[in-house]
């Protein structure tokens, strides 16, 4: 390797280390604050490493913050949404990629168009529909729509299905297998990697959704973390050490999920899925 090349790579490295530190700083500050004694909170200059660490902040936070209930509610909503997405999206993607039918392209382009539709436009009538069904203050308005497919994920699965040669399906068709059986026994097993990725996106999207629960859930016992954590902020906002302990606990599930799936998350998106 030539000398200026090493210099070049080291300057890239230097910038990336700086950027990484900046991106991690809020989280380190959160962790540090969550272990601080009350009097250290407002110290100047700020205390970076609290000695001794006050672990009881976490217990205090748990006393005021029904973490396990919020966590369970978030989990129910997110798992329900993943199930709905996995049932509906590949089915529709199959129709849009492997069955030749009248109107296929027409519906497909409409679907792509809806990806760009602002949620605010459909929000109010959707609310009224769910209100008339008597579903307000239940998880149903947050879960049930996923059983009707999510356009972006249908699109991504379709892109994957298109890479599977038609000959494979035709062979099964000649053997007399029904279309649904081909879908179930041939397509779905082949699509495991993309389905895993979609589940991950759906789970994270649902876990992180704030506006949906805000609209539909009013009863505190039904709150997911999305509503529980900001509520903690409103009530105990001056106890920043408890608050940051609560925030740490709230993001731990996401961090654990990230650690185990980062390989798929970061390598999973291929541009071929976006270019069309």
């Amino acid at each position: 390797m030539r000398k200026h090349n090493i210099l070049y790579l080291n300057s890239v490295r230097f910038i990336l280390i700086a950027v990484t530190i900046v991106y991690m700083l809020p989280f380190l500050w959160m962790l540090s604050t969550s272990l601080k004694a009350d009097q250290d909170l407002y110290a100047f200059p700020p205390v970076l490493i609290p000695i001794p660490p006050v672990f009881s902040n976490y217990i205090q936070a748990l006393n005021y913050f029904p973490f396990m209930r919020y966590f369970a509610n978030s989990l129910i909503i997110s798992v329900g949404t993943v199930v709905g997405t996995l049932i509906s999206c590949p089915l529709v993607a199959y129709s849009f990629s492997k069955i030749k039918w009248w109107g296929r392209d027409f519906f497909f382009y409409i679907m792509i168009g809806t990806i760009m539709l602002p949620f605010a436009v459909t929000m109010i009538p959707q609310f009224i529909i769910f209100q008339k069904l008597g579903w307000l203050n239940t998880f149903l308005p947050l879960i049930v729509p996923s059983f009707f497919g999510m356009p972006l994920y249908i699109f991504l699965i379709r892109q994957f299905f298109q890479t599977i040669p038609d000959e494979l399906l035709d062979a099964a068709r000649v053997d007399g297998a029904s279309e649904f059986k081909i879908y179930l026994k041939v397509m779905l097993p082949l699509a495991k990697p993309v389905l895993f990725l979609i589940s991950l996106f759906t789970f994270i999207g649902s876990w992180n959704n704030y506006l949906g629960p805000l609209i539909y859930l009013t009863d505190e016992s039904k709150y997911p973390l999305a509503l529980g954590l900001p509520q903690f902020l409103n009530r105990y906002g001056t106890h920043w050490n408890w608050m940051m302990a609560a925030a740490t606990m709230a993001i731990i599930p996401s961090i654990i999920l990230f650690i185990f799936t980062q390989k798929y998350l970061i390598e999973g998106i291929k541009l071929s899925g976006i270019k069309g």
Partner: protein
Amino acid sequence: MKRKQNLLGLLFASPWIIGFLVFTLYPIIASLFFSFTEYHVTLPPKWVGFANYAKLFKDQLFLKGLINTAWYTIGLVPIGLVLAITLALLLVQPLRERYFYRSMIYLPTIVPVYAFATIALWFFSPYYGLVNGLLSFLGINGPMWLNDEKWVKFTIVLISQWGVGGATLIFMAAINDIPKELYEAAMLDGANKWKMFWKITLPLISPATLYYMITATIGALQIFDLPQIMTGGGPANASLSYVMYLYRHAFSYMNMGIASAMAWILFLISLVLVIIIFKTSARWAFYGTSR
């Protein structure tokens, strides 16, 4: 045979088609209708013509929310674009530990916004936050950030940049798709890195840029979570976003007519912006010979 295919296709697509009719098409039409009515959910809608629209354009807070959202969009879209492309260029360099940087920069994007909002609120706290603490070491008297009318929108744009990892990944994938031979040929012609970026990289990632421009613009127009949790619209409504005000009309005042009119105005604005982006993209977006 043909008929059977049509039926099968429709059957497989039916979950989405039904969902589209019930949760998308009907709501679009219904909200247009509601926007011309006075509607408080408990009583049936009452036709009022353009009264809601007329009322809105005389409403100071509506105009404030609209202008604030324009500023959010003007800040978020270009800053995110430059940052995402710059980071993507750095992250594709052949460093052994590049996967570590990628992970660390992507990590904040999967942290829920409602959690990150509380963290950022404390991180940017004017008197006790780490940011102003660090600035004071450098002898800089940090601004009041979210507590200052003049700074609050910029601070929210800044905090949003912790979520740039998603767009960065898309640009990384686009850069990795560029054939290496192009750079080798340019090198032989004596082009420098700067020139190669403008003449090869940027034109060849333009489909990703187009995708970013559209999704980022629509996202910025709907900004809600961060200001709602961190400032509630304050100070003095300086951070009140369009969708926050829409949300207030719909779910605090239960005034669905006004809220629907706001939704339709937003719809038309995003439609116009998307069309403008598409039309101008013919000039700057480049599609390879592959199509």
